[in-house]
Each structure stands twice: as structure tokens, then as C-alpha cells.
């Protein structure tokens, strides 16, 4: 079932070569960068397609494997660096390289005038390299290399315009919060090695599952512990409660970055990882319950916050957090194929929405506040049309992509292997809010009278084709993507779960919720725009709380960051100068003081010195005379 080949590595090598090119040559060859940047992605995509077709031709459950070399041999632990393409990683690889290619093309236009043009593509290529390593890895340690790599690139790209300190701070925040998640991930890996002695994914699945199921650690089955620890890593990378706080701040980066990393690919790494390790979670239902609840809470909580945001990118950021919550919920109730399906469709329409927002921001000369937009559909027709499609898709209007994937997850909540019906209701509530705030975004931006200054209005123009073409492609995918047989493909890896399809009543309900949300938004933001203001006043305090994103960041600051800084201050300014320097200086001081006492023996009087001689000689003679 597993065929060994030696060309899968090219999927990763092409973007890596691109990185090197951009680092060393890119600065002097802007024209070449425009070709090489997207070009290597296209090459990687081509290899990925070839691999996909090969796997597709194999029987169900078949895979291609490219063993690069033996990386670590340390006692009983053996780590092979190897890439594996099966149905699951094939889907992810195609998304990463395909959407990645579109976004690279978009960036050629979007970042055209930026002085860091080559640097941007270097970082982007590096990111793609790391993400592909993550997705293709056959060994958890290699996966972690990619995991860390995408975290690094996220930091580099969020803080791309580092001259503005805010951006650097946002990048730092993303990196540090991810670090917390990574600590959990590492602990999970340690446990795995301790109990199974290996990190090869296939080996764990086929040889060590019993150990994981039966061994106990701290009163819980090891599988549960490992599952939860790895999930901590996923909460960091995939922005779930409590480690989601970096993602809204990450909007400080250029919009293509938000589209690629914080919508389509990196943030889904957690979901992918948990799907890859589905077999661990299957023997740890307690962990799955936690996963499901966290996912649902995140989905609803982020949706609530998104309703009150005024920055167009922040709305999309919270929307991403919320949709990731959906995916995690899907994993938690046991319908991982549906979760991956949502990963794919979300990549389409969220990528589209971000790129479209970028187009809007580009046209508005950098403005991101929706309160200063309005009536743009006349000036930006292509952007408007594609974003309309994206909004309908994310709201879950059939037959666009979002409808299918969301629905499978919600159905899983009610009837999946680890169903939690109450969470299904939570999911519906979140779906309603999603439709509402996305509609709100659309209407505030494109409808009504333009609230921008005359200056800005004068400059409004549609974006160049390098930017609009990817929009159109993504729009097409958002419309038809729902018909891709993703869940079936993933099931060949994860296992079939015999379940009937959702009843039509559910499908109808879902449609009604989606449409209802959009209609409400229409009413509040197009027909009677004065109403939202009144609502905000009525709900005064609650509204402020939501607008302030429930003040979670402030809570973290007070409870974690503040004390840490206080401790650091104490150590740096009190402990270090006082104790450490004090010990060193004190030693010197003691020596100096003692010697200033002893030096008084140097009277200058030779006879005193001679006396010392005599006393010394006396002691010597006495000692010799004893024997």
C-alpha cells in the first residue's frame, strides 16, 4: 500500500530554493522576484498534483513515501526524516501550494511599491516550505520542525513593517503565545516517546495503540493526557480559547499574510495535526470531549466579539477564530473528515475575503475602519462581486461551499461518534451570528452612502488584475468547492464512520439561519442604519464589553504578563545588581578591606620586618626541634 518514491521532496525543495533566491539575489532583481516568488509555488503545486494523481490511482488507503535520511539515532529512539502523501496530506498539500500560489500572485500587485518586496517573498516562500514540511511529515518530530517554522514565519511576517513598533509587538505576541502552545505540544511528544519509544506516526498507529489505551499517567489513560497536551499546542496554533489572543493582533501584518497564514494554512495546522493523530484521540474520548467544548466555546465567543468590531480585518480575524472553533468542534465530536472539509472550504472563502479586504484597503489608501467606508460597490465592482460570494459562502448559504462543510460539522455534533447535541445548538447560534456580522461587514463596506473623505473618494479605483484574478479564482472555488469529495478522501485515511446523511429538516434549518442572519444585517445596516447605534446605547455596558473583546487581553496582562514583567524587573534591577553584582563586588570589597587592615604591617621600618623574619625562623626552629 505504501510506495517509496524519491521525488516528493521537490514539493518542499522548490519553495526552499525560492527562499534562498529571494534572500541572496532578490534585493537586486525585483523583476525576477515577481516571477520566482509565485513560480516556485506553481512548481510545487505541479509536483503535488502529480503525487495526488498517483495516490488517486492507488487503492484506497494507499500512500507515497519519500524517505530522505535517518535524522536521529539516539539509543532506542530513531527519527527518520520522511515525507508521506496519502489522501489527507494530499488535500492539505494541494491547498497550501494552490492557495499559496494565488496569494503569491496577489502579493505581486499588493506589495508592489513596498521597499521590502524581496524580503516579503523570502518570508512567504520560507513559510510555504515550513508548512509543507509540517503537512508532509511522516514523523512527529519532523512535523514539529514545520510547526516551529511556520510560527517563526508568522512572527516575521506579522512584524513585516517592523518600523512601526505596534507591528513588532504584535509579531512578538504571536510568537510568545504560540510558544506556550508549543510547550504543551512538546510535553505531549515527550509522553509519546516515553510510552511508545517512537515518533513515527505510522508506527504509533499500528503498533502502540494498545499501550496508549491501557497505560495510566496521573490517574488518566496516557492517551487522554497526550491528546490534551497536543491539543494545547493546537489551541496555540489554531487560535482556540485560551490562546487565540494573538490572531486579532496579527492583522498588523500585510493583508496577503493574513490571508495565507491566518486564514488558509497555518492556523489549520492544529486541526490537521489532530486529524493525523486521530487514532490517539479515538482511544481518548475524554480528551475529545474537552476538544469539542473548547471548539464550540471559541466558535460562539469569537462570533460575539466579531459583531461589534469596526476594523474590517479584525472582523475577519474573529471570524477566522470562530470558524477554527467549528473545525475543532468537528474533531471533538468525531467527524474529522468534516473538519478537514471545512479547512478546505474555509481556505477558499476566507482567503477570498481577506484578499478582497486587501483590495478595499488598497483602494481606500490604507483605511481599514468600516465606519469610514460605504457605497464602494460602484467603485470596486469586481471586488464587490467576489466578496459578496465570499460572504454568502461563509454564511452558509447553499449551494456555496460553506454550507456543506458547516453542515457536516453541525450534523456531527448531533449524531457523530462523540456527539454532544448541546454543542450543536451552540454551533447554530454561532452560525447565525456569523451570517449576521459578515453581512454587516459587507453592507457597511459596499452599500449605503460613502462616508470617506473626498480625498479618498477621489482616489477610489479597482485593483490591478494581479490582485483581482486570484479573487475571481477563489470566488469560483467558493461556489463550487462544496462539491469536492473531501470528506470521502479523508475518510480513506481516518476511517469510515457509518452515518446517514443529515435529514433535510436540518439542511433547511441551516439555510434559514444563514439567510436570517444576512437579512437582519441588511435591515440594520442598509435599511435603518440608525438602529445599531440605539442598540449599542441600550446595551451600553455589555456592548462596551463585547467591543473590548471581553477584555481577555487585559486579563492576561494583569494575571500573567504583568507579574512576569514585575518578576523580570525585580531580577534585572534588584536581584542582579544587588545579589549577583553584590557578591562579586562584595568579594572585591572584602578583599580590599581586609588587605587595608593587613597593609598596616608594612610600617617601612626595616627592623619590624626583621622581627617578622625572626618570628618566622623561631617557628621553624621550634617545628624542627620537636622532632
Amino acid at each position: 500500500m505504501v510506495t517509496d518514491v524519491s521525488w516528493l521532496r521537490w514539493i518542499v525543495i522548490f519553495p526552499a530554493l525560492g527562499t534562498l533566491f529571494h534572500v541572496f539575489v532578490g534585493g537586486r532583481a525585483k523583476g525576477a522576484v515577481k516571477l520566482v516568488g509565485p513560480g516556485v509555488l506553481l512548481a510545487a503545486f505541479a509536483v503535488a498534483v502529480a503525487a495526488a494523481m498517483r495516490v488517486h490511482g492507488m487503492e484506497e488507503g494507499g500512500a507515497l513515501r519519500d524517505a530522505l535520511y535517518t535524522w536521529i539515532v539516539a539509543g532506542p529512539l530513531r527519527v527518520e526524516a520522511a515525507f508521506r502523501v496519502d489522501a489527507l496530506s494530499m488535500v492539505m498539500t494541494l491547498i497550501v501550494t494552490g492557495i499559496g500560489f494565488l496569494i503569491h500572485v496577489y502579493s505581486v500587485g499588493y506589495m508592489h511599491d513596498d521597499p521590502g518586496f524581496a524580503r516579503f517573498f523570502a518570508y512567504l516562500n520560507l513559510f510555504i516550505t515550513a508548512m509543507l514540511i509540517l503537512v508532509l511529515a511522516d514523523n512527529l518530530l519532523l512535523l514539529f520542525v514545520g510547526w516551529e517554522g511556520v510560527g517563526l514565519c508568522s512572527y516575521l511576517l506579522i512584524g513585516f513593517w517592523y518600523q512601526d513598533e505596534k507591528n513588532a509587538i504584535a509579531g512578538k505576541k504571536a510568537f510568545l503565545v504560540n510558544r506556550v502552545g508549543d510547550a504543551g505540544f512538546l510535553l505531549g511528544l515527550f509522553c509519546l516517546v516515553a510510552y511508545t519509544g517512537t515518533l513515527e506516526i505510522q508506527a504509533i498507529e499500528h503498533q502502540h495503540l494498545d499501550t496508549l489505551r491501557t497505560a495510566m499517567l496521573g490517574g488518566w489513560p496516557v492517551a487522554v493526557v497526550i491528546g490534551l497536551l497536543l491539543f494545547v499546542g493546537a489551541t496555540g496554533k489554531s487560535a482556540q480559547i485560551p490562546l487565540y489572543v494573538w490572531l486579532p493582533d496579527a492583522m498588523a501584518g500585510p493583508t496577503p499574510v493574513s490571508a495565507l497564514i491566518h486564514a488558509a494554512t497555518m492556523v489549520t495546522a492544529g486541526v490537521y495535526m489532530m486529524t493525523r493523530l486521530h487514532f490517539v484521540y479515538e482511544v481518548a474520548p475524554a480528551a475529545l470531549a474537552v476538544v469539542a467544548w473548547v471548539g464550540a466555546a471559541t466558535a460562539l465567543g469569537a462570533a460575539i466579539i466579531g459583531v461589534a468590531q469596526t476594523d474590517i480585518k479584525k472582523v475577519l480575524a474573529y471570524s477566522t477564530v470562530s470558524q477554527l472553533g467549528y473545525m475543532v468542534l468537528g474533531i471533538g465530536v468525531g467527524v474529522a473528515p468534516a473538519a478537514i472539509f471545512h479547512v478546505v472550504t474555509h481556505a477558499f472563502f476566507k482567503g477570498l475575503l481577506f484578499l478582497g479586504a486587501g483590495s478595499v484597503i488598497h483602494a481606500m489608501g490604507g483605511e481599514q475602519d468600516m465606519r469610514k467606508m460605504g457605497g464602494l460597490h460602484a467603485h470596486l465592482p469586481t471586488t464587490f462581486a467576489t466578496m459578496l460570494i465570499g460572504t454568502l459562502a461563509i454564511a452558509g448559504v447553499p449551494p456555496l461551499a460553506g454550507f456543506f462543510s458547516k453542515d457536516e460539522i453541525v450534523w456531527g455534533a448531533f449524531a457523530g461518534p462523540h456527539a454532544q447535541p448541546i454543542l450543536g445548538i451552540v454551533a447554530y447560534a454561532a452560525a447565525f451570528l456569523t451570517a449576521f456580522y459578515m453581512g454587516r461587514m459587507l453592507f457597511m463596506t459596499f452599500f449605503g452612502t460613502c462616508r470617506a473623505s473626498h480625498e479618498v473618494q477621489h482616489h477610489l479605483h479597482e485593483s490591478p488584475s494581479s490582485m483581482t484574478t486570484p479573487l475571481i479564482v477563489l470566488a469560483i472555488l467558493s461556489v463550487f468547492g462544496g462539491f469536492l469529495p473531501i470528506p470521502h478522501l479523508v475518510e480513506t485515511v481516518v476511517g469510515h464512520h457509518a452515518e446517514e446523511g443529515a435529514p433535510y429538516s436540518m439542511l433547511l434549518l441551516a439555510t434559514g439561519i444563514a439567510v436570517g442572519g444576512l437579512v437582519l444585517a441588511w435591515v440594520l445596516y442598509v435599511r435603518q442604519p440608525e438602529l445599531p447605534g440605539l442598540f449599542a446605547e441600550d446595551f451600553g455596558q455589555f456592548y462596551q464589553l463585547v467591543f473590548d473583546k471581553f477584555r481577555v487581553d487585559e486579563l492576561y496582562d494583569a494575571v500573567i504578563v504583568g507579574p512576569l514583567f514585575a518578576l523580570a524587573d525585580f531580577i534585572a534591577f534588584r536581584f542582579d545588581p544587588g545579589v549577583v553584582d553584590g557578591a562579586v563586588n562584595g568579594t572585591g570589597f572584602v578583599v580590599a578591606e581586609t588587605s587595608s587592615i593587613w597593609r598596616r604591617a608594612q610600617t617601612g621600618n626595616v627592623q619590624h620586618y626583621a622581627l617578622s623574619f625572626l618570628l618566622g625562623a623561631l617557628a621553624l626552629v621550634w617545628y624542627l626541634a620537636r622532632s
Partner: protein
Amino acid sequence: MGATPTSWYLVLSAILFAIGAAGVLVRRNLIVIFMAIELCLNAVNLTFVALARSLGSVDGQVIVFFVMTVAAAEAAVGLAIIIALVRTRETTNADEVATLRW
């Protein structure tokens, strides 16, 4: 009459040495200090000669020969230093030449 025991010579030598040492430490006048040093050296000479006799080896006397030579050289140089010192400081009091101090 029998010969005097060697130990008597050694006792005498010890006493002379102690007297010389005390003189070095106690007197203020630089010249007298020097003379006390010579006294110490002579006490040692006596020790060597006595032991040479008691062991029957001439080597002890050879050593005395060398001691004398060196003592003479040392006296010459030391007195030259004193002359130079007195010329600059106009004093031979040990207390007033205590500059090698902290």
C-alpha cells in the same frame, strides 16, 4: 682534662646569635644594627667550626671561609648604602628612614 663538649660551643653560639638578633631589632643607629648583624654571622661561624671539629671534616671550615668573604662584601656595600643615605637624609636613625611603607 677532657675536651669541652661540642654542645657547649653550640650553646654559646646560640646565645651570641640571640644577642645579635636582639640588637638588630632593637637599636636605632644604623651602624650599630650592622655590627649586630656581623655578630650574628660570627655566631654562625662558631657553629660551623665546632661541628667541623666534632665531625672531623674540613668542609665546615671551608664554609666559614665563604661566610667571611660574603660578610665582608656585604659590609662594604651596606656601609656604602648608609653613606649615600646619610648624605640625602642627614640622619642615621632607623625610624626616620621608614619610607618603604604603605
